């Protein structure tokens, strides 16, 4: 018997020891075309391991559970950057190693969520509005009321499994800022969400909402702009709007994890993503707006106001801010909404 077990163990332990050179990326699902990753693999002669997540809260929890030493590069929502940096999870960027930062639109050089862009590089930006199937809704979709007002429901809907976006939408519907931590306003948002949850089909991630809209399973749902705009080719009945009460404007950021063993490779990867050719390929494929100004002339949909919002729409958009200690109040609301 001994003859049988030991070789297995030895093989296994040997397998654990060897470290191939690889870049480990934690990313939203369906958020980077495979060809781009393959191109990087080919150019650098390394392997890229991409893991994906659907809910930033679950992702943060994963980082907490030791994920911070498992990835080199993370793509994370803007409002999480501050908290991650304060917790010592992020590596302060050595900008001399990312020469292509020069390609970036200047407005991302000093964003509100990361003053001086010390820790983060913008990857994509977009909005979170309402997506719907024109052929399945029973009325106009122009307000968050289709979710929050039982009288104005136009069809079955899902809720987005993202705390800040969903609580933010309820706040917006009531005419509040998406960043308010006023307990009374949050309690109101909680009540709205709980009522909506009862009528909804439950919670789902952004790509799941997109797929279920395409499948005709639901008629309406909050969604990220690019997911829907990229899927419009597949089903032209799929529409996206910024509700009249307003919506969030966000950027997802590239950050380097402090415990990553591979800072050099991480920098090269970020630099690679900022090449105009690559940046254009990404945005043309996944449907979000690129922060790489130098790539703009290669963007197919640069005139689409839903991707690059007109000044008129921009007035209705609000950035998600880093709430610091105020995040706890949001967490409580969310835990209640999810478990009640």
């Amino acid at each position, binding site marked *: 018997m001994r003859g049988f077990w030991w070789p297995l163990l030895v093989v296994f332990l040997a397998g654990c020891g060897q470290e191939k050179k690889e870049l480990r990326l934690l990313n939203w699902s369906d958020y980077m075309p495979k060809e781009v990753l393959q191109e990087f693999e080919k150019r650098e002669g390394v392997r890229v391991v991409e893991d994906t997540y659907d*809910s930033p809260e679950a992702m943060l929890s994963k980082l*907490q559970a030791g994920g911070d030493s498992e990835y080199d590069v993370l793509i994370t929502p803007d409002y999480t950057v501050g908290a991650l940096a304060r917790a010592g999870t992020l590596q302060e960027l050595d900008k001399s190693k990312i020469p292509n930062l020069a390609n970036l639109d200047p407005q991302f050089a000093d964003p509100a969520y990361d003053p001086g862009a010390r820790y983060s590089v913008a990857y994509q930006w977009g909005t979170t509005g309402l997506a719907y199937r024109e052929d399945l809704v029973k009325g106009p979709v122009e307000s968050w009321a289709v979710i929050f007002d039982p009288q104005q429901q136009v069809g079955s809907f899902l809720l987005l*499994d993202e705390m800040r976006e969903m609580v933010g939408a309820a706040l917006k519907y009531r005419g509040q800022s998406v960043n308010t931590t006023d307990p009374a306003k949050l309690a109101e948002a909680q009540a709205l969400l709980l009522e909506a*949850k009862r009528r909804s089909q*439950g919670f*789902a991630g952004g790509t799941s909402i997109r797929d279920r809209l395409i499948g005709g399973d639901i008629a309406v749902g909050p969604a990220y702009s690019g997911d829907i705009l990229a899927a419009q080719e597949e089903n032209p009945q799929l529409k996206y709007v910024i509700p009249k009460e307003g919506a969030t404007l966000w950027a997802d950021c590239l950050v380097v994890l402090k415990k990553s063993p591979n800072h050099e490779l991480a920098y090269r990867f970020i630099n690679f993503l900022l090449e105009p050719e690559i940046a254009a390929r990404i945005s043309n494929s996944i449907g979000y707006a690129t922060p790489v100004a130098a790539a703009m002339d290669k963007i197919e949909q640069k005139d689409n106001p839903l991707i690059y919002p007109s000044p008129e729409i921009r007035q209705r958009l609000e950035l998600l801010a880093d709430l610091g200690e105020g995040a*706890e109040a949001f*967490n409580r609301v969310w835990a209640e909404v999810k*478990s*009640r």
Partner: protein
Amino acid sequence: MREAATPAQRLRRVLLTVGPGAFWLVLFVLVPTLIVLVVSLMSRGSLGQPVPPFGLHNYVRFFSDPLFLEIIGRSLWIGFWSTLLVMLLGYPLAFYIAQSRYKEVLLLLVVIPFFTNFLIRVYAWIVVFQKEGLLNALITAFGLPPGEFLPSTLAVYVATVYTYLPFFVLPLYAAVERIDWSLLEAAYDLGARPVRAFFEAIFPQTLPGLLAGFLLVFIPAVGTFVIADLLGGGKVTLVGNLIQLQFGSAQNWAFGSAASMVLMAMVLLGLWLYARTQGERGLDRLV
């Protein structure tokens, strides 16, 4: 005559056989449980990690908020009724198999779903219940308007029953196989009518298997989060979902640990009652 082993030899043998396994169980079962207990007494840090101060606040919160008691109640309720349904479906089936000429084939037919991956068994019901799924296709074929079955408590029930049915049939079948049928003859001879004869002569013989099967279904059914997660769409919250939520998106490990301790305490209480009535042989029937 061989000599009795010296105490030193005996100790060596015990250490060689029991030692590694016992060490493993202590390190990976006992110690983690104690860690959960300690963490359940801590507070939530700014990123969700457990930090001091220590106290009973998580338990106070758990037992003072009707929300959490409701979740526990719902878990027990759904667990209990689905287990009962499993028994109604599985009990006669075990008898049918035991008496059939094709016993081995039928057993195989129970074993195949048993060994089919758990997630696939749950996933199958999404395919049946989804809006354009099998059930709605059947309903509309009869000219009725399609219904919405996903997410729903009904779907959670059906999938729970489906998932754990083989867990129940197999141990019960083992009990039915061992039934002493001569007792039934005796009951008839004494003039009992069929139903009465069954309950007097046969049913008591299956009781140990029935109880073991009950626990085998009830405990995982109360503790599951996957079924409610996939078929309840986040609308049917069971205690398992609560725990997963606290370790996932709600990021409150300390409170999640307290909820885990409550669930564990309930399970151990149930098990203790079971062991009291069935003895250790009863515990063995759970494997």
